[in-house]
């Protein structure tokens, strides 16, 4: 994101507390990941050292430093989901999408993306939907009570299994 747009976002924050994280989150909401250029511009606009911006961006699991696929599938690995077999859900997803288990991206995070750049698989710890475990979130939408049988149906809603549109 260029300087001008970073400034536009930064202006929304009239108090300094929580500003850096807030700005990074807002940018990620628009661009889906934080590029090197973005981090530099954020450091510049907010007048904080680039090292600080970088350490913050890598410390918090919420930020992606590499581009992601069109749809982000996040598997909940929270305790309530774990006891209901979240690991198996992750495995089924990896299997269906053909991404390698345990594959990590350059920033060391577990976020494999499919070859057609349609899906990125990631994990999180609890969406607060623990009464309908196991839970998967796709692009912000929560799916409860998922299992090996209904996952393919859910994926189809997002164009899984179709020929590449490009």
């Amino acid at each position: 994101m260029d300087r001008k747009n970073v400034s536009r976002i930064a202006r929304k924050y009239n108090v300094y507390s929580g500003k850096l994280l807030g700005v990074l989150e807002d940018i990620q909401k628009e661009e889906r990941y934080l590029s090197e250029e973005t981090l530099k511009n954020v450091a510049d606009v907010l007048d904080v050292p680039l090292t600080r911006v970088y350490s913050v961006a890598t410390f918090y699991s919420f930020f992606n430093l590499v581009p992601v696929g069109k749809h982000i599938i996040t598997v909940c690995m929270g305790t309530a989901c774990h006891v209901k077999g979240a690991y198996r859900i992750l495995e089924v997803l990896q299997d269906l999408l053909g991404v390698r288990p345990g594959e990590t991206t350059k920033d060391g995070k577990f976020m494999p993306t499919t070859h057609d750049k349609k899906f990125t698989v990631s994990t999180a710890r609890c969406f607060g939907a623990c009464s309908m475990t196991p839970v998967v979130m796709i692009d912000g939408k929560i799916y409860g009570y998922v299992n090996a049988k209904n996952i393919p149906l859910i994926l189809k809603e997002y164009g899984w299994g179709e020929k590449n549109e490009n």
Partner: protein
Amino acid sequence: MICNADEGDPGAYMNRNEMESDPHMVIEGMIIGAYAIGANEGYIYIRAEYPLAIERLDRAISDARAYGLLGNNILGTDFSFDIHIARGAGAFVCGEETALIASMEGNTGRPRKRPPFPSQKGLWGKPTNINNVETWCNVASIIKNGADWFTRIGTEKSKGTKVFSLVGKVKRTGLVEVPLGTPVKTIVYDIGGGATDNKKVKAVQTGGPSGGCIPDSLFDTQVDYEHLADAGSIMGSGGIVVMDEDTCMVDTAKYFLEFAVEESCGKCTPCREGTYQMHRILEKITEGKGTNEDIVLLEKLANIIKLTALCRLGQTAPNPVLTTLRYFKDEYLAHVEDKRCPARVCRSLINYYIDPAACRGCTICSRNCPVEAIDGKPGYIHIIDQNKCIKCGTCMEVCNFSAIVKLSGESIDTPFAPIPINKGR
């Protein structure tokens, strides 16, 4: 003044509910608190995983401003107070008050030594009062009904009610509010309806990654601060995860240690390196490669980390291990000595077999096995090649005749090659 809405315990969501269904309750509590201590600035630090709660709080704060309940000269008095939202970004340790403050100041969220406590030196070096969402929510009703009303509920030392998030292998999951001092069994059986699928409840885990497991033999334990501590666990934020006979306690301990390894901020050595080593030992045990010495070492490490870590994340991270060792030693021993996982969870220690008496030769399993480990043809009893099987469990999920069994430490007789199903059986 800060409202802690980071709700990091994975498996607990009472704060989310409070903020989404009645955001004004939080705001009202904070206004009263600010008035009492003379604060002018308030923040709600909320985790990014709760977008709806953020949206509703944002709206509620604007509405409160429009009504003159927030901002300068509230209701014409000389008291001024405003609330801002600060978002977290997925780091458990940021729920710890000093880490949370560091995060709000735009730093990586790492805790620091206390004292000085935030009430002495907090956000930007200023005295800061920090409390949980639920605490703030209680304020208005206590003021309205009087302290006597609140303290009548609960026990001698733990007053009032508490909201718990009852989840896991229990029939009725959800949020429950009960007087402190209510026994575990009332919550699990009377309210939760016991385990699903006619299974037996084995334990509950309370307090999240900092807490411990309480076995069913201690379900008379009253849920309050003192009695949970006596049982080796904690109240924490109020998560109660129910575990049944299909939950492996060693695997559970491993799960929490993995969490600790990932969430350790890395500042102090006992937590950063110690939890890593504990996790490695647990991995070894669940893979069936553990020894009795490993169990001794595990316990020793746990006690050292408890005493030497800097913040409570590290100090409490060994709790899941210590409580499972205390109450479920037999499960550890089964893994180590018999190479058996009694709950049939740990993959290295289980095997899938097809029961020749139940197989109908439908071929679904062999068509779905990702590694082609199942041999057979229509009308023939199918057989799993144990050397090829990766123990994913797909076959068991797809078989419509419950012909596939999962065993640990035992096996059943199966033919060496597919044979025709005896139609007369």
